[in-house]
């Protein structure tokens, strides 16, 4: 009989449903097949013109109905699709989930095409308030809602019957992990028996790409798009902007066992530590990331020796991969050379607000399937990063525990520790 309380006397949190959408496809099965065969979802950008852009590839999700309808609509559809898969797998009613919602999603903004439409509809000839002057006559609930930060979660809450005030959050590129952490904490506090944690990001607009580009964060690789994201390689030159979503149904182990649900994995621990060094760069000694990993291990009640695989943040930027190696080698010491560490982003790119959730989903599948997805495009190893990155080809291995890292602009560092089985 599994323990229903953890090492600190808190309810153990299980995962009973998983849903995923990435540029590789819709649903866990398609994604897993592509991911384990080393397939890249990165492709030339077709959503908007690429004139004047230094980066011309992305991992956009182009095959949904909302793919051309703007960031808010696509983010919603991504979230809905993943949530539906997860809730169905968990066996709850699709319109009466009965637990709170935690949504990691990108900050919203009026779409440029809507802004242009307002400008053209205005009477005033010239004025900085010209766009504003046309606003109230637009009479479009859709456009209004696309500018409200709480609206995507509100719609999801309505669709799935989640309880209470849904929380929409951003911790930049750590958001997906934070959504899961919030769900875990709510269950541990005894506020609910289950929670829906979603990370969704459909915000790959031209302006988003340009903003990251101006910060020199993106790969400008002009070769085949599928080769652009190359975490831990010597010639890595930035991340590849991407979209996607994942949803986890989190549930107290007690509740999952009582209703005979299949336990897909255990959310053992969450840790975070923020960095006060710089808006985009990490403290040179890596102490905040180190602190986040250690906090997650402590929260999980595990020692460094008990981690079997690291699902890296591994963005493919020169800075991140170097700093991530520094923090991992500091925490795990010499043993880091023998722990497999791979980056899903080599194939799906950096899905920003969704990344932490998608990578948690893949981490759980790694344990269940006994297969570690590779780090592809690892043709030119960085000698300064001495890791077993599971190069280019998947590896069959029994994995019992995973550490998943998420680091973001604004000094955000969040780590999750997951286990295959309850103890």
């Amino acid at each position, binding site marked *: 009989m599994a323990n229903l309380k953890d090492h600190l006397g808190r309810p153990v949190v299980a995962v009973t449903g998983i849903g995923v959408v990435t540029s590789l496809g819709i649903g866990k099965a398609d994604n897993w097949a592509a991911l384990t065969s080393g397939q890249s979802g990165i492709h030339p950008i077709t959503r908007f013109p690429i004139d004047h852009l230094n980066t011309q590839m992305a991992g956009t999700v182009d095959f949904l109905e909302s793919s051309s309808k703007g960031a808010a609509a696509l983010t919603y559809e991504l979230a809905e699709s993943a949530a539906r898969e997860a809730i169905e797998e968990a066996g709850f009613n699709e319109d009466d989930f009965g637990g709170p919602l935690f949504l990691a999603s990108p900050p919203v903004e009026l779409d440029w095409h809507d*802004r242009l439409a307002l400008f053209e509809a205005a009477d005033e000839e010239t004025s900085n308030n010209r766009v504003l002057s046309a606003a109230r006559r637009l009479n479009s609930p859709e456009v209004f809602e696309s500018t409200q930060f709480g609206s995507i979660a509100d719609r999801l809450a309505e669709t799935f019957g989640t309880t209470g005030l849904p929380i929409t959050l*951003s911790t930049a590129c750590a958001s997906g992990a934070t959504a899961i952490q919030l769900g875990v904490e709510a269950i541990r506090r005894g506020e609910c028996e289950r929670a829906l944690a979603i990370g969704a990001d459909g915000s790959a607009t031209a302006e988003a790409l340009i903003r990251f580009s101006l910060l020199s964060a993106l790969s400008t690789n002009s070769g085949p798009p599928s080769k652009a994201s190359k975490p831990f390689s010597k010639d890595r030159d930035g991340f590849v902007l991407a979209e996607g979503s994942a949803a986890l149904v989190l549930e107290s182990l007690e509740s999952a066992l009582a209703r005979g649900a299949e336990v897909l994995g255990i959310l053992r621990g969450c840790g975070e530590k923020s960095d006060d060094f710089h*808006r985009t760069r990490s403290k040179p000694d890596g102490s905040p990331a180190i602190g986040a990993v250690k906090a997650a291990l402590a929260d999980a009640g595990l020692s460094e020796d008990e981690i079997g695989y690291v699902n890296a943040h591994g963005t493919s930027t020169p800075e991140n991969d170097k700093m991530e190696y520094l923090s991992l080698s500091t925490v795990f010491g010499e043993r880091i050379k023998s722990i497999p560490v791979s980056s899903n982003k080599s194939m799906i790119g950096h899905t920003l607000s969704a990344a932490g959730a998608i990578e948690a989903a893949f981490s759980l599948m790694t344990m269940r399937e006994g297969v570690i997805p590779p780090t592809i495009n690892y043709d030119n190893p960085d000698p300064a990063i001495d890791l077993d990155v599971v190069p280019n080809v998947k590896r069959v291995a029994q994995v019992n525990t995973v550490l998943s890292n998420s680091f973001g602009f604004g000094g955000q560092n969040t780590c999750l520790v997951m286990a295959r089985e309850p103890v």
Partner: protein
Amino acid sequence: MAPRDVVITGIGLVSSLGEGNDAHWEKLTAEDPASTVNSERFPPYSIHPLPEIDWSLQIPKRGDLRQMETWQRLGTYAAGLALDDAGLKGDEALCSTMDLVVAAGGGERDGNVDMAILEASTQRKDFDVLLNEKLTTELRPTLFLAQLSNLLAGNISIVHKVTGSSRTFMGEEGAGVSAVETAAARIRSGQSTHMLVGGAFQTDHPDMLLTYELNGYLLRGPWQPVWQRQKSEGGGVVTGSGGAFLVLESREHAEQRGRKIYASIGPVASGRARRSRGELASALSELLDKVAVPSGPVLAISGASGAHAATEAEKALIDGNDALAKRAFSSRTGHLKEAQFPFAIALAALAIDRGAAYPSFDADSEKPFTGKPQAALATAVGYHQFEGMALVTAPA
């Protein structure tokens, strides 16, 4: 009294009324206060803009200031005031273990770049190409960092060294409600001992008004107090710039370091009423039941925005309860969006601490409250969605 009661030990306020607790108390208790409404900047709309602020008092490094637009400065400034007030500013040990929850929207766009693009569009047929051309050459590279929602929290970490953990909630008033509710729950459960929680809103930018007016929520024409906008032209909301941050601690943590306690935070209740099905009134009534207002006269610090449906429902609920005396602070400050609920809690705590109620902000709609408030209700009913209430009580 329990060791993990949630207590308020620091308050940081900025609004059109000024900065700091004394300035706010003075202006809000003045008999005949000067209005801070500005109706010239964005006619036909009115706003409550910020007064002159010497940002360097809380953000000493010029390099930090340059990286922020007004919204982030405002939040970082208010957070600094709260830390100062709680005696935590510069306390490296306590700041490095302090947990941060920020309620945030987004930062200001560069209006000049946007306007240049829109104006150029009249001469071009390839708008998307024009967009690439202009954005790649005219956007200031670091402006993105002044816009990202979580970078208010990021700046608070950088400037004030608050680095335990950092989470940013989005979603208008509801984000502020969830931020306070989650912070209180973390303290009560022992997940945290001391937290910094709050938000800021800078309204003095056409885009910030746009997000209300796309659904016709703003008051047009002559200014009126919050409760009297039902028949006025437009949607009833007058916005303001401001920020509110609170230092929350477990009672035990605050007492161990011998800090003054302003007030305790009792039950916090939140909800998502299905308003289109007419459920707002009953949902608000349930929230009021959940916060368990004590018997006897209770001051109600209302975050009512003036938005017609939401304000009418809140007014009906409060007026239907003889014990409650409402005060809608947005009649003085304007609607502070994400900061609305933290601001309401702060004003409730101040009234309890100073042992007096605010006089009516609108004598026609708000009844007198005499005596010393032992408890105050704080509310934020979203202009469009989400609702929250909390009970703030005397420290012991």
